[in-house]
């Protein structure tokens, strides 16, 4: 137990970035219940902080600081790209209907109400965290051979004190063979859901996450529903969560249905995934076709932030490219579908010219 305690404190030491300090503090105060929208404390996985610590140690020598999902400028870019379509954010939810209420408002009151709605929309559009996959727990606490053969089933002991954060709860399993080990991540999730049920989460994985059902959902263009269910059901660093998200993003990319996620809270995660995989061509083309050139430029900027050693980043820095020129540089250098991008850019420029000529 003492060993555990020390390992926990070491872990909290390791997560020594500016975010996690706040995060740990939050974790101590508030148990992690019903926090769908808030990222869990310790946004960085276990792997990264080591690198961070190492990089901080050698901060003077190199400037390689891998940007994370939660960086301010990254978040700003992603929020700008997500857009804020109030009609889509506040789409009528499927619930029992009540007759609407009417109010008489002046212009000022109307603007005030719209402003409040925009703030509520921003809260709704808070992005769910993007974390590394969690390392499986393989920690054996004790080996008691004398208990072998006494029981036929595993026993799971859970600490159900109310005010402990779920990540720091002790959940141990006594096998029939006598070993006392720490529970694996899946067992932990299951036990925590049984004792502290969270709304929208089921103990056993729902059938909808099976392959054929997911395919059905994709064919019905219900990617948003799939992602919402996934966020409700799984922890952000679990394997299934990451797998399903990646699968959904791949399907969107394959069919070019980027607009389904625009103005939802999943757009940022999707853009982050594509930028990491260096597959932003489809998204770029879609944005240019919908005349969202600012979003396209911010996407290319994000790409340069994440891959500063790439060819396009270097060239852009040399030429100090801005706006459309930036996109052209990217299209020429690192894009797979560079030709398509240039073509769409040309078409866009022609439409702009014709519009300006007409008006």
């Amino acid at each position, binding site marked *: 137990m003492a060993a555990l305690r020390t390992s926990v404190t070491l872990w909290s030491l390791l997560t020594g970035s500016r975010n996690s300090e706040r995060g740990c503090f939050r974790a101590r105060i508030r148990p992690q219940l019903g926090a769908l929208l808030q990222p869990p404390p310790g946004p960085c996985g276990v792997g990264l902080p080591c690198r961070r610590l190492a990089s901080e140690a050698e901060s003077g020598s190199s400037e390689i600081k891998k940007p994370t999902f939660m960086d301010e400028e990254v978040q700003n870019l992603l929020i700008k790209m997500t857009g804020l379509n109030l009609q889509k954010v506040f789409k*009528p939810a499927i619930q029992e209907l009540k007759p*609407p209420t*009417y*109010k*008489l*408002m*002046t212009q000022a009151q109307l603007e005030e*109400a*719209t402003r409040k709605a925009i703030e509520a929309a921003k809260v709704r559009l808070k992005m769910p965290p993007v974390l590394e996959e969690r390392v499986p727990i393989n920690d054996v606490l004790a080996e008691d051979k004398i208990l072998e053969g006494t029981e036929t089933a595993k026993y799971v002991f859970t600490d159900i004190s109310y005010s402990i954060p779920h990540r720091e709860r002790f959940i141990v399993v006594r096998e029939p063979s006598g070993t006392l080990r720490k529970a694996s991540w899946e067992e932990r999730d299951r036990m925590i859901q049984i004792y502290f049920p969270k709304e929208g989460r089921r103990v056993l994985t729902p059938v909808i996450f099976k392959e054929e059902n997911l395919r059905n959902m994709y064919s019905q263009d219900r990617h948003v529903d799939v992602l919402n269910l996934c966020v409700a059901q799984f922890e952000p660093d679990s394997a299934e969560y990451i797998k399903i998200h990646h699968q959904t993003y791949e399907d969107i990319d394959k069919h070019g249905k980027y607009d389904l996620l625009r103005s939802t809270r999943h757009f940022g995660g999707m853009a982050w995934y594509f930028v990491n995989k260096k597959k932003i061509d489809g998204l770029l083309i879609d944005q240019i076709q919908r005349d969202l050139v600012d979003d396209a430029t911010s996407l290319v900027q994000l790409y340069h932030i994440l891959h500063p050693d790439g060819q396009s980043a270097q060239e852009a820095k040399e030429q100090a490219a801005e706006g459309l020129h930036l996109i052209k540089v990217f299209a020429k250098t690192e894009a797979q579908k560079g030709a398509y991008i240039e073509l769409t850019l040309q078409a866009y420029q022609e439409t702009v010219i014709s519009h300006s000529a007409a008006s």
Partner: protein
Amino acid sequence: MAAAVRAAGRLPALCGVPAGHIWSRQLYLNTYPTASVLALKTVLNNGPLSYPGTRDNHHFISLTRALQTQCCISSPSNLMGQQYRSYSFFTKLTADELWKGALAETGAGARKGRGKRSKKKRKKDLNRGQIIGEGRHGFLWPGLNVPLMKEGAMQTIAQRSKEEQEKVEADMIQQREEWDRKRKMKIKRERGWSGNTWGGVSLGPPDPGPSGETYDDFDTRILEVRNVFNMTAKEGRKKSVRVLVAVGNGRGAAGFAVGKATDRMDAFRKAKNRAVHYLHYIERYEDHTIFHDISLRFKRTHIKMKKQPRGYGLRCHRAIITICRLIGIKDMYAKVSGSVNMLNLTRGLFHGLSHQETHQQLADKKSLHVVEFREECGPLPIVVASPQGALRKEPELEDEVPDIKLDWEEVRAAQGMKRSVWSNLKRAAT
């Protein structure tokens, strides 16, 4: 004996008349105990071969059966009492006059509503299906039964074989049975609000107008059928049928009218055609409900209507459901209290619905935006109407406690003080 002979002597006369049956003028002893001769005289049967009309009147059946058993078809040697009179009472009058006597539509029994519904008889055309030339012995007369010319040659008189003749006669009987069955078949009347009532029954579209305008997309529904009586000098109580009917095309145009006549169908027609002349156009919000809650009192009828979202259905008085369907309103709640007089109910309903204030009118009146907030859309404001003129700067004064009159029944229901088996009752949709 003498009586029997007399009876036998009279029988053939019954059978004689217009039919072209060939009768042997043989008289046979009539040994069957029959009904009285007077009863026989009233039989109107064109021949013993014809199947008795399946009337409700058992006299007829017994009589005709008696006749049949007497005058059966068999070889001439077995013929019992086949009587044939070429000139009798029945030959002196036309079929119409005879039927007029038998049906007894006029008379003391028919006046003043004394006639029973079950005693009503129906006229039957006894000459239907007769071909001049067809007879019991089965002779084929070219020009009558059989075509005159066959391959250019004039045909001769022939006779059918016995089997053929029997078959032909059996066919004839079957055909007559089928006619009778069809006549007797009762057409199922469309069910209105309940089995025997005329409320909610549809009358189809109104008749086209004099300048040729058609009202094909209008449907009419009966709301009330009432027998009203008026005292006259000559007859005393005179019955008249008063019908209240509503028409509508499901797209906002609807109207109602009253028609009165002695005959029910005439009253329906009058009401239907009158209703099309008194149409109201009723504004609907998004084509499925009213703009706002309406509570009105018309004479002694109180109606309280509430706006409902899509999918709620019409949970109202059955007459209001019918009228709303004709207007095109699909979701509404209405409560009728006080008097439920159908006329006042319809009048009040139409008055209330036509005097609704649309969102645009409200916006123009107050010169402010009309903004809708829906639960399912969260805090999003939806501007439904903007004033056409200027927009005023001063906001609408709103007290913390709104100054509206509360309805005690509603308050009781909201507080849970109301114990009623009829609230939240599961009914059929709409």
